[in-house]
């Protein structure tokens, strides 16, 4: 097996481990996770890792350097805070612990991110700040997380999980742009604390007012920052807490910077450096109410310790391929359908996707829109579009997932139609979005023909992407109307109603929609040339762009923590001005979904 093949095969194998914990039936609740974190700290203070529930393979890092359990701080730390700040999140499987430690009696700051899988400790990474070195460094012995962190937020003042994460993402985006992209509100009393010291930007605050959370952003005091790399780890909706880990990169290129009010400030240091951090945000009433951080300097541009190698694109072999959709099976095979009617497949880890199912007299394919791998029924579903055949009906096709042999063809009922994409319910029923006439069809296991679930030209005319969340709720998007909807069904599965969802960003041609566990989805937007991570809570969709700037992206799929965006270059097909010009190589663009680069 080549290195590349090993790569995506490993990704597929790791897919289960990388799924949100909720999808894995996390057997350890928040109290259990908190207990594990405290027990880990106690075990470290006793230099005795025996007796902890370790996973089969455990990853461990201190200050971004991979070390062995039982070595490093396991031989120097002799005590830990008895009232630490702990944020446990069974949904993500992460628990964050922050507080004081002592090395042979010398106090320091310690923050730890533990990954718990099936009640076992699978990974731990920590940011540890000891006394020696540069500011800021306060007094760990008197440090205690603010009391606000322990109190529950009144129900009316809470945000949903997705909104809380979006707020934290927006904070770091504002930090990175030195306040230029400030889309975050702060509570009046919000203060920045780093290693027990009140801060303003990178510098210890001279006065109490300087330490407010908004001052560095409004005044432009993050002028030294080159970038912020971060990852949200854990959310506690009741207490309004979000814990994140990350890095602030500082180039050391300038000795001073000018804030937005024209004042010049000396840089905190004159050399390139990176600051690793764990931050815990308190969010209340839609605003950031408190931010406490433990941070430590590491070599410039140090990478996160557990990152997988950067995934590579998969090239689709052929000219004028013009893919529309993609899917992946549990083994790590990638499939993509194209307007030429050919379905391409990339074997696990392969560099390229090659033609696998071609149009023939049996399948009568002229163009393929949606494709969906269904491991449970060993089926590759595909939507066939009668391209170039005015008045033709489209069809749902079923192929053997292993051999590619056709095993079913199900026409969409007249009139002329566009079978566009497919989702599979827990009972194996296929749900099909038919774009032209605003219809959703179902095909029950063993059925000979599709049945109409709903037709609504007003709301569903343009229905495109279709997907279930983990609890079986059905969602669709509308490529024409730039909307997202929930398809409400009755207890017997029949149609009940449609609910328009509120999306956090304007949509531009929403297309392929794929579930990735829990209430999270990947969504492609063709004209926008981007793929996004969606979190749907109630009627709200929180959207986070993963990658944009691509040349038309009608589809997306994922393997493990890598999304593959279908870069269709459709303008070379549909734009008369571009017809005949060379579109170049076609590829499924690999985009990391998580972790820190």
């Amino acid at each position, binding site marked *: 097996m080549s*290195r590349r093949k*090993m*790569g995506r095969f*490993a990704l597929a194998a790791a897919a289960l481990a990388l799924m949100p914990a909720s999808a894995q039936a996390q057997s350890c609740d928040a109290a259990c996770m908190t207990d594990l974190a405290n027990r880990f700290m106690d075990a470290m203070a006793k230099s005795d890792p025996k007796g902890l529930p370790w996973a089969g393979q455990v990853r461990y890092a*201190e*200050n*971004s*350097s*991979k*070390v*062995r359990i039982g*070595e*490093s*701080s396991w*031989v*120097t730390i002799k005590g830990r805070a008895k009232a630490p700040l702990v944020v446990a999140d069974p949904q993500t499987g992460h628990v964050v612990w922050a507080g004081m430690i002592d*090395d*042979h*009696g*010398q106090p*320091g700051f310690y923050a730890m991110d533990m990954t718990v899988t099936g009640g076992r400790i699978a990974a731990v990474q920590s940011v*540890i700040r*000891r006394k*020696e*070195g*540069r500011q800021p460094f306060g007094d760990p012995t008197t440090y205690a997380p603010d009391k606000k962190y322990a109190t529950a937020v009144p129900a009316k003042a809470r945000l949903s999980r997705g909104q809380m994460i979006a707020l934290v993402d927006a904070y770091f985006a504002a930090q990175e742009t030195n306040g230029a992209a400030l889309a975050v509100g702060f509570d009046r009393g919000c203060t920045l604390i780093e290693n027990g010291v009140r801060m303003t930007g990178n510098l210890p605050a001279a006065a109490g007012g300087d330490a407010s959370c908004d001052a560095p952003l409004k005044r432009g005091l993050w002028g030294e920052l080159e970038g912020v790399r971060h990852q949200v780890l854990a959310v506690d909706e009741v207490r309004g807490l979000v814990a994140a880990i990350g890095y602030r990169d500082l*180039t*050391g*290129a300038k*000795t001073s910077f000018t804030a937005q009010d024209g004042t010049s400030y000396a840089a905190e240091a*004159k*050399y*390139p450096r990176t600051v690793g951090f764990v931050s815990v945000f308190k969010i209340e009433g839609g605003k950031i109410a408190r931010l406490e951080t433990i941070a430590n*300097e*590491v*070599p*410039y*541009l*140090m*990478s996160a310790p557990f*990152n*997988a*190698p*950067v995934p590579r694109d998969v090239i689709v072999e052929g000219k004028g391929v013009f893919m529309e959709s993609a899917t992946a099976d549990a083994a790590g095979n990638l499939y993509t359908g194209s307007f030429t009617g050919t379905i391409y497949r990339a074997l696990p880890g392969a560099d390229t996707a090659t033609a696998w199912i071609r149009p023939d007299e049996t399948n009568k394919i002229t163009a393929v829109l949606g494709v969906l791998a269904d491991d449970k029924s060993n089926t590759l579903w595909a939507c066939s579009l009668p391209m170039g055949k005015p008045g033709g009906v489209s069809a749902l096709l079923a192929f053997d997932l292993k051999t590619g042999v056709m095993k079913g063809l199900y026409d969409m009922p007249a009139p002329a139609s566009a079978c566009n994409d497919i989702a599979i319910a827990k009972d194996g029923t296929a749900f099909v979005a038919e774009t032209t006439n605003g219809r959703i069809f179902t095909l029950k296991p063993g059925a000979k023909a599709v049945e109409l679930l709903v037709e609504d030209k007003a709301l569903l005319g343009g229905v495109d992407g279709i997907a279930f969340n983990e609890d079986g709720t059905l969602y669709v998007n509308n490529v024409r109307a730039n909307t997202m909807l929930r398809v409400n069904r009755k207890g017997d599965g029949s149609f009940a109603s449609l609910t328009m969802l509120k999306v956090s960003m304007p949509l531009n041609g929403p297309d392929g929609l794929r579930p990735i566990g829990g209430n999270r989805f990947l969504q492609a937007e063709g004209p926008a040339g981007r793929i996004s991570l969606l979190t749907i809570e109630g009627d709200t969709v929180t959207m986070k762009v993963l990658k944009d700037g691509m040349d038309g992206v009608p589809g997306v799929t994922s393997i493990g923590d890598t999304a593959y965006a279908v870069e269709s270059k459709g303008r070379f097909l549909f734009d008369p001005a571009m017809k005949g010009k060379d579109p170049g190589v076609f590829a499924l663009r690999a985009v990391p979904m998580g972790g820190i680069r």
Partner: protein
Amino acid sequence: MQSGRERKIVRDRVRRGNGRLLAAAGAAILMAMPAGAQAPGEPSAVNIPTCNRACLIDHARDYMKALAAKKPDQAKFARDVVFTENNVVVPVGKGLWNSISKVAPTGMEAADPLTGQAAWFGVVWEHGEPAIYAMRIHVSDDRIDEVETIVHRKTGLPAPFGDADKVTHHPAFNEVLPPERRVSRARLVAMAQSYFNTVERNDGTVFAPFSEDCGRLENGISTTAPGKGASLDPGKSGGNATSIASGCEAQFKLGIYRINKRIRERRFPLIDEERGVVVSTGFFDHDNEVITYKLTDGREMKTALKWPNSISLIEAFRVRDGKIQEIEAVFTYVPHFMHNPWAKGREHGEAGE
């Protein structure tokens, strides 16, 4: 010695990151060996250097000039050059390239035409603040395709730091030895290894042969010349061992360096038989499981720090008559057990864990 193909694989791995690719890279190297190879990893029995010592030193000087000018385009880089700073892969043009304001006019230079590598040890300034610096470059087809650097800055951690304007490199590193005073490449590596073996868990046992006049420059300051006032607390002596004892062998016989749990990822990329020079890289791991220890004369020492850390180093040895005559090292603190992306593992003959 690495073949060009093998080096490219290593560069690819360094660029993309370690981890899962390690095993794959090893496998790829084996596959890359053509039939009839002369030795593992060597595609040809012929290795005639095309860039001699003067050529390599010129490359090193050109690199330092380009660095001082903050103009990467003035350095002769290969298209796929890989640059590391303190063991992190950094895009050329970033890191020290962004902060440098001056390079010392002279440095300690070394070169090895057989492996196509050169080194430069000295002082640089970042916005006027001095930093101690060492680098290794590899030259292939007249282009620099590897740059490995260590930069030691004043960060408040206890370590030797010389007076930047007074750093003097021992001239012996640049002096050709008469043939009868030289030793072989293998023996030069053995000398360096014996030094590291002595440092590791230094308990008074000396494995390395030192000349009587042996001296050592660490981060631009002598750490073997007689010191100014004794202190058994390295925190108060700035980490300079001269406060306890002077002379290479005497210090080790006292067991001053007991703090070093292991000398890890030892590499010896550059050897100059004519001058008796070997340039090595590695890490000193200080686990600080204990924070006091006794010298062999019974005196009690305190460790400089109470928590685990590693020191990443580039260290050059000058060997004359089979004995270590002079040592020059540049090192800096890094997170404990950090790895060097250029290290390839024990299967390639690297020593240590």
